[in-house]
């Protein structure tokens, strides 16, 4: 199985979620993260002090899928998350050797 990790712009979460569920994927885990990259941040000024903020709010979506679904999922995410503007984010795919559903103990395919 594969773990697909996508870093996206926060306001795209709903669209990506829908795109994935439309593929029949029934679960995912989301984390609020801060991203550093080509997209430049902004400056904040507090009375005397000026700070260049280079980390921008992003959303990290982690979804574990059967290997066969990988391509479809990546494609769906990319289409949903794309704005064409710098900072749209990345998709990373990593191998998952084993999966368990805590409630039932089901494993692998049956667990996601």
């Amino acid at each position, binding site marked *: 199985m594969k773990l697909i990790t996508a870093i996206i712009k926060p306001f795209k979460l709903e669209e990506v979620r829908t795109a994935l569920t439309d593929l029949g994927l029934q679960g995912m885990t989301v984390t609020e993260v801060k991203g550093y990259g080509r997209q430049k941040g*902004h400056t904040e000024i507090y009375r005397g002090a000026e700070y260049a903020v280079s980390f921008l709010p992003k959303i990290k979506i982690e979804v574990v899928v059967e290997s066969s679904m990988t391509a479809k999922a990546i494609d769906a995410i990319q289409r949903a998350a794309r704005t064409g503007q710098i900072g749209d984010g990345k998709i990373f795919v990593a191998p998952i050797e084993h999966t368990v559903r805590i409630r039932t103990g089901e494993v692998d395919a049956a667990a996601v």
Partner: protein
Amino acid sequence: MNLNLPARCAAVVGALAPAGLALLLAGAAMAQDAKPPVPNNGDTAWLLVCSVLVLMMSVPGLALFYGGLVRTKNMLSVLTQVMMIISLCGITWVLYGYSLALGASGGALNPYIGGLDKAMLAGVTSSSNAATFSTGVVVPEFAFIVFQMTFFMITPALIIGAFAERMKFSAVLLFTLLWSTFIYIPIAHWVWAIAAPDDVAAAAKAIVEAGTDAAKKAAAEAKLAEIFGSAGWLAQAGAIDFAGGTVVHINAGIAGLVAAIVIGKRTGYGKEAMPPHSLTMTLIGASLLWVGWFGFNAGSNLEANGTAALAVINTMIATCAAAFSWMLCEWATKGKPSLLGMVSGVIAGLVAITPACGFASPMGALVLGLAVSPVCLLFCTSIKHALGYDDALDVFGIHCIAGILGALGTGILVNPALGGTGVFDYTIGAPGAYDMVFQMTAQVKAVLATIVWSGIGTFVILMVCKLVVGLRPAEEKEREGLDITEHGERAYNY
């Protein structure tokens, strides 16, 4: 209206509070007894404390109430707008606002607008006094000016809830300057620039003293007619509004509706979730609005007497009733009682009782409070969705609607037959006879005049702002949030 009905005209007098009686007072006082009246320290303490309470309504009260309801990324924009509005209005009020609205006579134009004799508070010293609603009782004019200033500060701030999260700061600034000058000041003058009780009493006395002397009598009656005739035109119409339901709430509420429509919906409205970022802040704000509102309502009585106590208890009762009734309605219709619902009821109740607080009986206040919530709830939900405008924080649905209910309710609840106080008639030194048709006509007139002038005026002013500085930031800036894009700060760095 018919100036040959002094009793009724006089009704106007006691009626509109908080009033700008300062102008003619000194003379008037003289008129009635050798040495001029001096302020009672208890009244002065009361009026000053009330002014402080009304300031607390704006900051932190209103700022937090509104701020808590927006998304984190726009929190500071709301707070900054409120701060900017009150500081700007504080300055313009002393420069020209007070003089035009309440401080100086506009001469022949006085029914429509005051004059500039007191611009920059010219001639006012710590020994100048302003009249109250009791003949022969005065308060320091500075106390009266600062109390009225706090009303001038908060009214435009109420409007921003309608276009929260999507208006340029520069546009808000320009809008505030124009709106407070061209909408608030005239309306305040129409309603609150009334004939000084002492003058009315003196003139009435003269009529009596004239006895059979026809000439004297005619002269005295002419004098009385003139006194009434020089009052603001809505004041002449006989509308009653104890603490500003019309001038402040209906006025701001309708302006909010127009602004929400003209400026358009927030980006993502209806698609993305936009839950309040901190109902805790909203609760703090609503509570401080409630606390400060006693200064707003009971302070409008100027004196610390039994009527002030009536205004306080009515404000308390109507608010409790409205909060409770909103909770029940929501529980019944949505399945759960919510905090936001209760605090919405708190505000609705406070707005509704504002014009009635010194006229209604406690039971009248209770009924008004129970009645206002379901109506406002309807406007903030079904009706708003049906019409599809994005009045972000329900300025129209709460301030304008509750304001209208209050204005009309006041006309009914003032009826002595319902335990109301009736309307004081300074020509006879007692409450005049209650005439429902007359009273309701007057109330409706005041409501409509406000809606028309404020509605149209707000539209025009927004167009001007659009031309001069533009109304909305670029979409991606709105997405990123006004805090960073307009103010370069973030509200929280946990």
